[in-house]
């Protein structure tokens, strides 16, 4: 009887070990990542806390302020339009597709969201499926409350609900730890997995922070592939149902580097533009100046045939894209 009990425990232990290894996937060092150490988030708040970057502000205030003014700081909310588009992607996308397995929001899994969140919130992959449901419900409740508040500006309940969810949605973003830890290494079997206690940047050394006491060089932090992880190549064919948003990195590789272009995303969008961690694009006056040569010349011409006259202004517009990717793009 005793022997049988031990066999039972051993079997259970083996199963647990096997399932943990399966959940983490292949590769050495995955267990040292932030999610490897903390386990998957069980709520949106846990996911926010898992990548909480407020500890960076004291020493990196300028970078933080730049980032706070950037689209990365509101990567799923945007101006509200991005959040509304997430809802459209959900309703017109995986909730309407016959084979997605989603009929109601309770059916949504993290995998369903990754068409959007691969880039808008890559850390969602570090959450349990019930967080995907919570995200869907939060978006829907936010939208309903926002519409109700527009219809009736005195509706305090709607305003409070809208503001509460807006705070949650704007706290889910591409922040310091997402770039300087989670996404800082693309070639993980070559360079190792980003470790939970390390911030990755341009230098090696000690880092004056209790949670992140080490600083390591990320070999891609100043390379375009770092940005290309999200500002991508076109269709995301690795997904069960491919999506397509950004094609900038594809254009950068095949239309810019292929023609001898040498600069990186960071050189233009951060350094030469002086934008730092704002990393802006089409809406920024400096980036607009840098992006394009624009010349116009015009003249008058009168076409005459018998008694028919066609006087006209001929306007020639000449443009040369000086950026490293197609315009427009994203």
């Amino acid at each position, binding site marked *: 009887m005793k022997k049988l009990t031990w066999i039972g425990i051993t079997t259970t232990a083996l199963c647990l070990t096997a399932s943990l290894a399966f959940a983490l996937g292949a590769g050495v060092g995955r267990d040292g990542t932030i999610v490897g150490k903390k386990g998957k988030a069980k709520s949106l708040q846990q996911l926010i806390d898992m990548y909480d970057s407020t500890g960076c502000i004291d020493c990196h205030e300028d970078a933080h302020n730049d980032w706070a003014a950037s689209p990365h700081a509101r990567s799923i909310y945007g101006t509200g339009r991005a959040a509304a588009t997430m809802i459209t992607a959900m309703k017109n996308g995986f909730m309407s597709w016959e084979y997605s397995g989603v009929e109601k929001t309770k059916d949504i899994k993290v995998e369903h969201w990754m068409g959007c969140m691969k880039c808008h919130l890559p850390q969602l992959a570090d959450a349990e499926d019930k967080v995907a449901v919570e995200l869907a419900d939060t978006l829907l409740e936010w939208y309903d409350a926002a519409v109700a508040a527009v219809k009736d500006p005195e509706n305090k309940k709607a305003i409070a609900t809208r503001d509460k969810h807006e705070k949650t949605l704007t706290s889910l973003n591409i922040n310091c730890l997402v770039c300087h830890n989670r996404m800082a290494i693309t070639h993980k079997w070559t360079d190792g997995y980003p470790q939970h206690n390390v911030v990755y940047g341009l230098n090696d050394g000690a880092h004056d922070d209790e949670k992140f006491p080490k600083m390591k060089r990320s070999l891609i932090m100043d390379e375009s592939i770092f940005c290309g992880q999200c500002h991508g190549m076109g269709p995301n064919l690795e997904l069960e149902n491919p999506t397509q948003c950004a094609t900038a990195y594809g254009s950068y590789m095949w239309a810019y580097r292929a023609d001898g272009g040498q600069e990186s995303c960071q050189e233009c969008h951060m350094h030469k533009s002086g934008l730092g961690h704002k990393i802006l694009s089409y809406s920024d006056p400096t980036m607009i100046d840098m992006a394009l040569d624009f010349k116009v010349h015009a003249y008058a011409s009168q076409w005459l045939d018998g008694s028919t006259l066609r006087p006209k202004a001929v306007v020639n517009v000449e443009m040369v894209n000086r950026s490293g990717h197609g315009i*427009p793009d994203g």
Partner: protein
Amino acid sequence: MPTPRLMARGNNMGRGPYEKSSILEDTGLHPGKKVEERFDIFFPVEEIETDDGKTAQVAAEREMDVTVQLWYKPFGTMSGAVLWREWQETISLDKKSKPTTYPSGNPQ
């Protein structure tokens, strides 16, 4: 601009990211490539009776104020559009022109 292809099949455009997987065509500006656009903008004309009783056409206006604007439209409409460049000039039919003996065209 890049026109995304609906589910990467056929010739219909897809709008939402969840339904796009290819490109139908791309009329955008590509790195280092010169793009030239020519616009022919016609002056209004009117018919007049000539001294010999025939009709001829003359320009109803001698000058045209031309404005060229380049807009970046992130959503394909004027919603959130950003004005990138603007050029203005008055184009005159009389600039560099000389009187003609023809019964139409520039005034004598």
